[in-house]
């Protein structure tokens, strides 16, 4: 069975007051790791692996940062939807 690799991407804004600090970053990374798709997070020119806690912290995203989320792979769509919900909901912090 072969699933054609697909790519889903979109832009978001970090809306929770503390930004992607350790607790929010843990949630994002745990969620990303539930999917087989590759997940990338970009701020400006810098793109990191969203399954990497250190990568996400290195982006240093405060509130109001515009980020670009990109999911590549078989379950890219559901992965993207799940992460989008988390980011839009302010990681349950607002």
């Amino acid at each position: 069975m072969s699933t054609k690799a697909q790519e889903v991407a979109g832009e978001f804004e970090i809306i929770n007051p503390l930004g992607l600090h350790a607790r929010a970053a843990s949630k994002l990374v745990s969620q990303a790791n539930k999917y087989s798709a590759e997940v990338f997070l970009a701020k400006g020119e810098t793109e990191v692996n969203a399954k990497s806690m250190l990568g996400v912290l290195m982006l240093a995203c405060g509130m109001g940062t515009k980020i670009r989320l990109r999911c590549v792979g078989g379950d890219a769509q559901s992965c993207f939807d799940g992460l989008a919900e988390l980011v839009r909901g302010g990681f349950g912090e607002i």
Partner: protein
Amino acid sequence: MIDGGESPGTAEGAPRLVREGVAASSGIGIGRAYVIDRRRVHVPRTRIEKEAIEAEIGRFLEALRDTRQEIEVIKKRLPHGEHRAILKAQQMMLRDPDLIGRVEQLIAEELRCAEWAMATATDEIHDMLDQADDEYFRERSSDITFLSEQVILELLGDNPEEITPPAGSVVVAYDLSPAETVQLHRCEVAGIVTAAGGKTSHSAIMARSLQIPAVVGVAGILGDVMSGEVVVVDGVRGAVIVRPEVDELGGHENERDEYNAFEQRIQREHAFPAITIDGRRVMTRANLSLSEDIDLGRRYGADGIGLYRSEYMFMNRDALPTEEEHYRTAKTVIRRYSPYPVVFRTFDLGSDKPSKLLSFSKPEANPAMGLRSLRLALREREIFLAQLRGLLRASLHGPLHIMLPLVGSVEELEDGISAVEEARDQLEAAGMAYASDFSLGVMIETPSAAVIADLLASRVDFMSIGTNDLIQYALAVDRDNDDVDYLYQPLHPAILRLIRSVAAAGAAHDVPVSLCGEMAADPRYTWVLVGLGIKELSMSPSALPVIKHIIRQSSAAEMDALTAAVLEARTAREANEIVLEVMRERFPEHLKHGGGRSAVVEEDE
């Protein structure tokens, strides 16, 4: 207690030392130093044979697993809360695919031993985090350094010996990992001193949540103290006394015991309202900003938020906050404190409190009197309107108070009010909902505003005196200037008269007057402020229990009597003497323990 055995106090003739640092966790701890000096783990730098690559990678992965397991054990011992979240984040770093990939690459391609590869990979990450322009993210670089050390020790088979200081000792270290801090809690240490770290480092957060007195950021402390020497950790003032004299120990012990007893007593009652024994109610609210824990006010029994510093929304970021963000932030705070009010001060920025989002055309010779605060907001009207629209929309979720800072004249107030009206019209035009019963107030922090408070009062729903700036402007004193800060006198007759006249103007127009400067948090001034007619005090959250306790132990009659006497004083010195004589007599403990800054001021006199 220090056991009176061998040579307490001065060792080997080394002198008594006092070192200052950041008061990271309140309380006083006394004990013998237990010095942990493992700043540099020795990292072997050897090359491996090609055939050994696979085994070396296996050894590395095993060390990662073991380290994760150790953290898991510690985590399980803890109740839920912030400290657990921190440990969880550390475990995730140890599972990080990028980190693991990089170490494997260094082993396989450069034939480095696992220890060396790990050290290199974490140094690279460390350098990246160090470049973040936000303190929080920079502090995380110390987290990764700790993890790296732990893994390397694991690899060396040097089982990172569990730190087991004797109960009652004071731990002195370069820095402590969150896991180590938890371990210290279990060992019942008396206090913590570290050379590195700031208020937001994880070890500081952990120490606060575990209530271990701690002073951090004491540069060079490792060179100042040896294990076994007596150390006093003063987490109230942010001081460390190394090798105290034998005859001062008793004093510190008393202070510690008094502090603990006092804290317990005060904290027990923090939720009770601040009503004097003869029935005068004083609202006690918290000052808060985005960078702080939103629940701090609730935790200390605040009747709402008397000053929300919205300018933090403009700091440490690349784009201007949108209306939507202002709305969401305000909504969150309002909901958390409803039915108590939340007073949002519109952004109070200037070239002295800069945000890279608002550029200043030229450096100002005198920022305190320059383009700042409401003046800046009126000039940057679109940015101001976005904030006002966001705030107004949040009024649907609970009592909203909007406060305009640095108003100096009726015209300026009217300009501010017309901006609020314009924002409201914009919402109407866009069909956005807001509640019409929000309150609009003015901050009284310029002498001109204080003098014409009666003229301002007729246009607003509330007034709030910002004493920090009012004192600075009225007395023409920069309190951060060492040469003149002695002139910064809250009880200067001019200041007392200004506060009294603002309170009277408010009463005449039936407009409540609150006070939100540092004076509100200072136990010496509580009676005088209430006596001058202030009905609401807003202060840093941790000061609330002490101030509420004073009010609950006092009568309005005695406050009024003291105030009448103070108003007769001809000089600030005289006023101070009158106040201190009474307050020292009535509230010796409150003055002594009531919050870092005032305690220190108290000692200087």
